[in-house]
């Protein structure tokens, strides 16, 4: 590998190299030492050293061996009193990445339900993806000390509460896998919604979410929901180039330039979804959401979208996972499959549960405008505007207010 220039692109390339190796190293060290927290500290030290030195020196030929050497040296240094650990570390050599990939255990430990969701997310990013505390803080726009505290508390809980480092038993696995998928999905959502150019310097969480989903899909090839989530993320990413205009304003699906979509990626993600669905015949929320995204992605124009099919998929999704937000999305599809009036009726009893949900008010504004009730529409836009902190969404709503 060659020396990298400074700049965001080389930084990202560096992050990718770190990500590919840090998780494996963490998994091996936790297995070896039997101490999650100690192993994680060593990997984090190595990662931070790499982020400091690789940009000025060069990315080593064998980044994994390099990271291991730094972690091991550091371990022999700091674990002086832990003779047991020292002996194990001293004997350890870094061979070719082992046949056995322990990262599945790592993911399940990081996403253990005895940890808070925020802790699960921070821990997964740090331990599995090799993000530094500073990178996590920047991605979520929270102070570094908050993230550091969250991580420290989580690691203490793992040790003191006896959270195991293993793949859950068969009867626990479905629920535990749901938890791990939820972490990846939240990460994806956070990254997807906050991407606007304002945080161009921040870590691309969507990229990390896709990486995690694809890692999990490789480790659990017989779980169609994992493939479903991966397809969902890839289908959304494939439309990325059309989501913002030159002025970094959000462009709605209806107005997006579909020639900018990555049609090859859309085809591949759709094929992945179809394969998983056919092989297992176990539909689930992620496969259904991916199927909806595929309907949009494969339509040649907004008008020619298969809206009746989307409404059917939402019905199936509501059957498996009832949620007011899904009902709202179904209502939006119903507008095009049926009429704005029918969609407005569907929104009636969502007010109580989604009072503080931006999209409800924005959608109602749209529907009211479609049936000519402009004054009421304006009121809804104002309510929506008051609820968003995202600059791109704010700009979109403000623009709408100014011409409505």
């Amino acid at each position, binding site marked *: 590998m060659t020396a990298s220039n400074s700049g965001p692109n080389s930084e990202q390339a560096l992050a990718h190299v770190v990500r590919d190796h840090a998780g494996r190293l963490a998994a091996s060290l936790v297995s070896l030492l039997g101490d999650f927290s100690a192993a994680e500290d060593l990997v984090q030290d190595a990662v931070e050293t790499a982020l400091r030195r690789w940009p000025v020196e060069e990315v080593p030929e064998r980044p994994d061996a390099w990271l291991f050497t730094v972690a091991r040296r550091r371990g022999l240094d700091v674990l002086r009193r832990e003779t047991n650990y020292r002996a194990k570390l001293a004997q350890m050599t870094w061979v070719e990445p082992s046949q056995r990939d322990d990262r599945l255990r790592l993911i399940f430990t990081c996403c*253990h339900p005895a940890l808070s969701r925020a802790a699960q997310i921070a821990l997964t990013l740090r331990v599995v993806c090799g993000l530094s505390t500073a990178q996590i803080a920047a991605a979520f726009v929270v102070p570094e000390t908050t993230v550091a505290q969250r991580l420290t508390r989580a690691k203490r809980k793992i040790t003191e*509460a*006896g*959270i195991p480092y293993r793949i859950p038993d068969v009867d*626990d696995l479905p629920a535990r896998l749901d938890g791990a998928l939820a972490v990846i999905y939240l990460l994806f959502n956070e990254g997807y919604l906050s991407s606007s150019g304002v945080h161009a310097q921040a870590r691309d969480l969507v990229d990390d979410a896709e990486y995690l989903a694809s890692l999990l899909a490789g480790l659990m090839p017989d779980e169609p929901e994992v493939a479903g989530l991966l397809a969902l993320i890839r289908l959304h990413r494939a439309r990325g180039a059309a989501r913002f205009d030159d002025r970094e304003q959000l462009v709605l699906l209806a107005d997006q330039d579909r020639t900018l979509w990555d049609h090859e990626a859309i085809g591949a993600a759709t094929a992945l979804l179809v394969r998983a669905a056919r092989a297992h015949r176990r539909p689930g929320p992620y496969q259904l959401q991916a199927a909806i995204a595929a309907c949009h992605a494969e339509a040649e124009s907004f008008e020619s979208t298969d809206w009746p099919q989307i409404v059917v998929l939402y019905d199936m999704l509501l059957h498996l996972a009832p949620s007011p937000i899904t009902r709202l999305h179904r209502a939006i599809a119903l507008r095009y499959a049926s009429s704005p009036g029918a969609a407005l009726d569907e929104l009636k009893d969502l007010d109580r549960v989604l009072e503080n949900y931006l999209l409800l008010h924005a959608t109602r504004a749209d529907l009211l405008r479609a049936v000519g009730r402009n004054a009421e529409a304006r009121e809804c836009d104002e309510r929506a505007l008051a609820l968003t902190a995202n600059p791109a969404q704010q700009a979109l709503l403000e623009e709408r207010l100014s011409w409505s």
Partner: protein
Amino acid sequence: MKYVLMFVETEEFAKELETMGDPERENAYAAVGRWFAEHGSKITHHAHLAPVHTATTMRLRRGEEPVVTDGPFVEGKEVVSGFAEVEVADLDEALKIARSWPACPIVEIRPVS
């Protein structure tokens, strides 16, 4: 590792128990008995506490007389009604035991330090 499973009763649960007929209540107790028998090899100690109206709380204050009050230490709708100490490999095993608890609806699991 040793864990204590604290069994927490809610108001609804207490009411439910009250309104049960005798055979129903006997069934409920039998289910608890079976649970203890099933996990007997892991349970190192357990106790069922008398109802919360029997609780007395003492607050110790440095250099001053303790304050004794009637009732549990937190006034609330959820009260600890008993506990079992288990000796298991890790939290997942403790969770597995807690999962099949057939009585009150909340179980707090804490390692013994």
